[in-house]
């Protein structure tokens, strides 16, 4: 038993739903109690899908447990087939149905439906959402693909994009255009928008693009064994990774090493331009799914000039590559699905920026640290109306903007703090400097009186004298926490019990980098 307040990943059957919902002509019959239909709203609300996910739930209740839930499952299966006429059906159980052991696979097999029925075994009490998606896609490939002739021209499949994926929709568009610029046609994109018939002809492609290892590595490995289809190992997120990916594709496809058109790419110049100087050495903490975290680490270090001070992922399946990546950066990877541990790590490291998930964005808000979102779990904000990929040239441009944006905001806030005492720019002033927003003078006086005589603050046996406390407040908010900790640490080391302005600046000199 593990107390969980919030989870990065849902249960494995939600992963199966992400595959089923991504595809067309496929239906998922899910043996599940009433209430598990909540998962529909992830797709209709967060992703704004205009169709219900193609999932029929048995929604059994307590009274059914006494009678016959197996019959209920078969009825649901039959109703779903009659109504939706899918080309193929996947069947499985959610966590509760797993306990009652009705065997949806065996039951549906005995029904003799005229379409392929693919049973899923997803251990709900051991595994999570990404595993569910990966396993489902693999089982679908195994059941539906068939040996076929290769196309005469060089073609590939793009594998991995699902429903409810982080920017999957736009990544497919960007990646297809890059492949097209290399003269390689895309045979099938799967599971996103693929039909069972499309899965059947996966084998005609010369190779597979493993876009998201989380959802398709198992399938890619099987297709490599079964149909001798090699697959790309580099996920093209970032400039360097995209170039490596293109080199990998050229090698697999036997293409000459000609120059590839990257005229749409702006990140390198934006990063070299002088106004990016302030990005230099920014201490960033990175956390997300394994693939996006590793990609972000490379971009942060090589393409933005940041210093990576922490790296981790929540999906244990990718602990090994994340650990290896962290080691190269001289770090110890944080592998956990407990956001409180992540928060503690961030708090201890006091980075200047976080690259994380929506949860780290909230952690950042609490700790006053700017954050850009780089990875699932998804939020309605991760499905913007505009084209906003992560992979390829445009993905690199999008990432530059996304990462710099919270920092620019941070600078603005810094300026606001600098001018806090200014007669026009103080806490009580409205957003506008027009006359109608002029605040009551009296209210302002109270604020000033308060700030004039700060109370001595005592922490760990060290007292901040009023003057030092006031001086500390003049330091930009995003380094203030670090300055406070360093000064206190310095004071303790020096045996100083009360911190004066002198102590503050001695500590600053002591820790100067």
């Amino acid at each position, binding site marked *: 038993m593990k107390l*969980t307040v919030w989870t990065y990943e849902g249960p494995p059957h939600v992963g199966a739903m992400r595959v089923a919902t991504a595809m067309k002509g496929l239906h998922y019959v899910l043996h599940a109690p*009433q209430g598990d239909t909540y998962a529909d709203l992830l797709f209709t609300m967060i992703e704004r899908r205009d169709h219900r996910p193609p999932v*029929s739930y048995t929604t059994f209740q307590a009274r059914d447990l006494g009678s016959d839930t197996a019959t209920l499952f078969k009825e649901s299966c039959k109703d779903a087939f009659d109504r939706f006429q899918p080309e193929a059906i996947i069947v499985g159980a959610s966590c509760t149905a797993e306990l009652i052991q009705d065997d949806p696979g065996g039951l549906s097999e005995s029904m003799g439906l005229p379409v392929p029925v693919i049973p899923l075994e997803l251990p*709900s009490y051991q595994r999570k959402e990404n595993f569910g998606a990966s396993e489902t896609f693999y089982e679908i490939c195994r059941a539906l693909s068939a040996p076929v002739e290769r196309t005469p021209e060089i073609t590939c499949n793009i594998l991995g994009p699902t429903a409810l994926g982080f920017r999957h929709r736009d990544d497919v568009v960007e990646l297809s255009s890059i492949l097209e610029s290399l003269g390689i046609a895309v045979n099938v994109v799967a599971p996103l928008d693929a039909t069972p018939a499309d899965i059947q002809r996966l084998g005609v492609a010369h190779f597979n693009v493993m876009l998201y290892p989380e959802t398709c590595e198992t399938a890619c490995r099987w297709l490599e064994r079964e149909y001798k289809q090699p697959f790309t190992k580099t996920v093209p997120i970032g400039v360097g990774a995209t170039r490596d990916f293109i080199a990998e594709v050229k090698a697999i496809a036997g293409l000459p090493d000609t120059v590839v058109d990257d005229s749409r790419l702006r990140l390198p110049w934006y990063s070299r331009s002088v106004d990016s100087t302030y990005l230099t050495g920014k201490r960033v903490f990175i956390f997300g799914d394994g693939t996006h975290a590793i990609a972000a680490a490379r971009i942060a270090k090589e393409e933005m000039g940041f210093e990576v001070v922490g790296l981790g992922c929540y999906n244990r399946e990718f602990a090994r590559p994340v650990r290896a990546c962290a080691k190269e950066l001289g770090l110890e990877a944080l592998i956990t699905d407990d956001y409180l541990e992540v928060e503690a790590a961030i708090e201890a490291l006091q980075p200047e920026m976080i690259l994380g998930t929506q949860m780290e964005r909230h952690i950042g808000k609490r700790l006053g640290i700017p954050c850009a979102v780089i990875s699932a779990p998804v939020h309605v904000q991760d499905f913007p109306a505009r084209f906003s990929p992560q992979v390829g040239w445009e993905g690199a441009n999008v990432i530059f903007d996304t990462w710099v944006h919270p920092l620019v905001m941070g600078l603005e806030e810094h300026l606001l703090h600098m001018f806090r005492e200014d007669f026009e720019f103080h806490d009580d002033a409205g957003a506008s400097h027009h006359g109608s927003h002029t605040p009551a003078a009296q209210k302002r006086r109270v604020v000033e009186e308060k700030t004039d005589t700060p109370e001595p603050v005592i922490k760990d046996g060290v007292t901040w004298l009023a003057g030092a406390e006031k001086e500390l407040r003049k330091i930009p908010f995003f380094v203030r926490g670090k300055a406070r900790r360093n000064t206190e640490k310095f004071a303790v080391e020096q045996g100083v019990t009360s911190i004066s302005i002198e102590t503050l600046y001695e500590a600053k000199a002591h820790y100067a980098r």
Partner: protein
Amino acid sequence: MNAFAQIKPPSVGCGNAPVLKQRGQREVFCGLTSIVWLHRKIQDAFFLVVGSRTCAHLLQSAAGVMIFAEPRFGTAILEEKDLAGLADANEELDREVERLLARRPDIRQLFLVGSCPSEVIKLDLSRAAERLTQAHAPQVRVLNFTGSGIETTFTQGEDECLASMVPVLPETDAEQLLLVGALPDVVEDQLVGLIEALGVPVVKALPSRNADTEVGIGPNTKFIVAQPFLGATAGALAGRGAQHLAAPFPFGEEGTTAWLRTIAEAFNVSPEKFDEVTAAPRARAQKAVAAASERLSGKSVFFFPDSQLEIPLARFLTRECGMTALEIGAPYIHRDLVSADLDLIAEGPVLSEGQDVDLQLDRCRAAKPDLTVCGLGLANPLEAEDLATKWAIELVFTPIHGYEQAGDLAALFAKPLKRREGLTL
């Protein structure tokens, strides 16, 4: 003494209308979802779901928000080894509770909430609650209820929670009114204010905002229910000797007046006093509803089952906002509580209980309502089919009871129609 003015029922109401019952996929939340508002209402309680990753995922998805502070609900996720041996599961639970309470000394009430998996493996949470109460009394009281999907639908979670509190309420002989249902504080304060102004001596609320507020119960307690889904709680209170005041629910001007009048009659308040207290807020409510329901008048509405609020809300929309109900679907029709509302709805709409969502969608498409009230899983797909929708879940999270919210309630339904009128796309 003048008699109270009574509201006029239709010549034929829905009280005896046939009920369509179909069995198929039910597109509804389970009772765990109630925790999302219960934990806001009961400010010193922690809700510990004993369940699976699915339960945790439901809670965070239904809450629709990330967690800003450490929240007062969580899931003890069952793992493989907990399923293997129940003795171990109990030990694990005790350990998790121990750890939780040590970290959260502010917690005074702990609810162990049963889920589908905990019930299927027959983990006895009532015994666990007894054991843990002994271990942590008097600082913390541990209770248990079920929020599982196999036992409860959405708002029934609140019913189970409140019902679990009834047996431990202390006995009292005081003449008092108990207001039952987890209402937003602002609404509760308004209603209690009105009832006190009527001259009712003691007004208490269940649930109270914290464990220290003494709420007793006894033969001189009369209780009135503010939410139509509290059938089990009403039964438990009656079982303790309290007297149920049956009334239409306090939605809209008419509903609120009828509800308050039931209290007034039970406590021998004079009609003059009643009019004196209610006249001003009644007039405000009528004015606000009239303004907000302009767009609703003459339009049709179709309810998918969701929160059990459907019947009282259909009564409000048809009688006060000029709408026509085509179908009123409810997950469960608790006649003891909603018959007063049913009697006030003119015959005509299909009344359905339970659900086969695919068949109901077929009926909805055929009926082409001007407004469909449904859950979040159905709203966007129906909008894509050009049917205007109102998310039902907003109706349980938003203050909608009483006079001062009557206009807001009408406006909630009018907003989707207003938006469609305003967009040129």
